């Protein structure tokens, strides 16, 4: 459309010359970058669960391509969640009121941040339980329970894959949060909605947080 050449944007030619070095994909045409947007959002802003369900369904299908097994699939879902945990850790700390804007220094403080602040941000409610492993041999293990993980709401895992829990994605978010805060950990999701309890909460999931030895060591050194 060479004939339309003379019709210029209202910005005029001089501003176009000024910004000639800034053209390209990096700059949106209205000049508003990610830096022009506020970091705070109103509390009530929520997303449609249906659209999330479709997106998450596609994420699971994508992760399922060319996997070697269930563990591999869970690992991939975990990897998808990991960077989100890292980013949310900083974002949610920033949104905390200035007085309580502190980095978590202890395991308990971190896990409480995860089960309340993070959970509320993601699922609009706190996690259902936070427990420490009662086994004295595994002091590095903690358990976060969610009776009805939002990501699993519409998912029915086929019988031949009954080891799988798609909340591995959420486990990845938790793991990213722990890693970012300096508490390296392995987090896995396990379905426990079987037997008597399963009647009430068939989708109940426990996130097993297994901190690395150095974290427990530091915890002992710092004192509680």
């Amino acid at each position, binding site marked *: 459309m060479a004939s339309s050449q003379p019709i210029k944007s209202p910005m005029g030619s001089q501003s176009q010359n000024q910004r000639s070095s800034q053209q390209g994909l990096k700059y949106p045409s209205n000049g508003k970058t990610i830096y022009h947007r506020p970091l705070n959002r109103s509390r009530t802003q929520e997303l449609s669960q249906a659209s999330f369900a479709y997106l998450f369904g596609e994420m699971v299908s994508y992760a399922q391509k060319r996997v070697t097994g269930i563990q591999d699939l869970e690992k991939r879902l975990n990897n998808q969640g990991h960077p989100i945990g890292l980013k949310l850790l900083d974002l949610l700390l*920033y949104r905390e009121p200035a007085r309580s804007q502190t980095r978590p220094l202890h395991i308990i403080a971190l896990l409480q941040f995860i089960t309340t602040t993070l959970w509320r941000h993601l699922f609009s409610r706190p996690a259902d339980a936070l427990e420490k492993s009662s086994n004295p041999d595994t002091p590095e293990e903690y358990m976060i329970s969610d009776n009805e993980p939002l990501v699993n709401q519409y998912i029915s895992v086929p019988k031949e894959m009954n080891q799988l829990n798609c909340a591995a994605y959420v486990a990845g978010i938790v793991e990213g949060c722990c890693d970012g805060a300096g508490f390296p950990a392995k987090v896995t999701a396990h379905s426990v909605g079987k037997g008597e309890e399963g009647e009430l909460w068939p989708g109940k999931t426990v996130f097993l947080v297994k901190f690395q030895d150095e974290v427990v060591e530091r915890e002992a050194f710092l004192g509680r």
Partner: protein
Amino acid sequence: MSYYFAIIGTSDNPIFEYEFGTAKAGGDGVPRFPEQARHMNQFIVNASLDNVEDVQWGGGQMYLKKIDRYYNNYISAFITGSNTKFLLLHHPTTPSTTSTRASTSIPANPTSPQTEEAIKQFFVEVYENWLKTVMNPFYTQGMRIDSPVFRGRVAAAGRKYL
């Protein structure tokens, strides 16, 4: 006063660097490091990372204040929730022994409470902009930040507070 600001990632990798001079008390915003010392800035800042690690578990505050000093270079630090470190090296042009005059002014006295507060405000503003970078879906942890908008924001914060 001349400043050297660096953001250091979780594996002690530099993510962002910026040099500037004071804009207060008639400063022109140009850094004036002695030519023979300028290349040392990176080393001095890197060496102070050990001190950050010493104090970071002592309290949950993000602003760690002045954590190191090397001759006439003072280093202040800020640490984010995900262990990214902001380090600011400040180097007074004249040695701070002339504290009889203008001892509270930010550009002259690197240890006064006013300077401490000004640096905190600078860090908080950079923190907000850094966080916006991090929220970019195409940014992964540890990546260098080379957005000119971010650089501009850091420069503006430097002009505003320091």
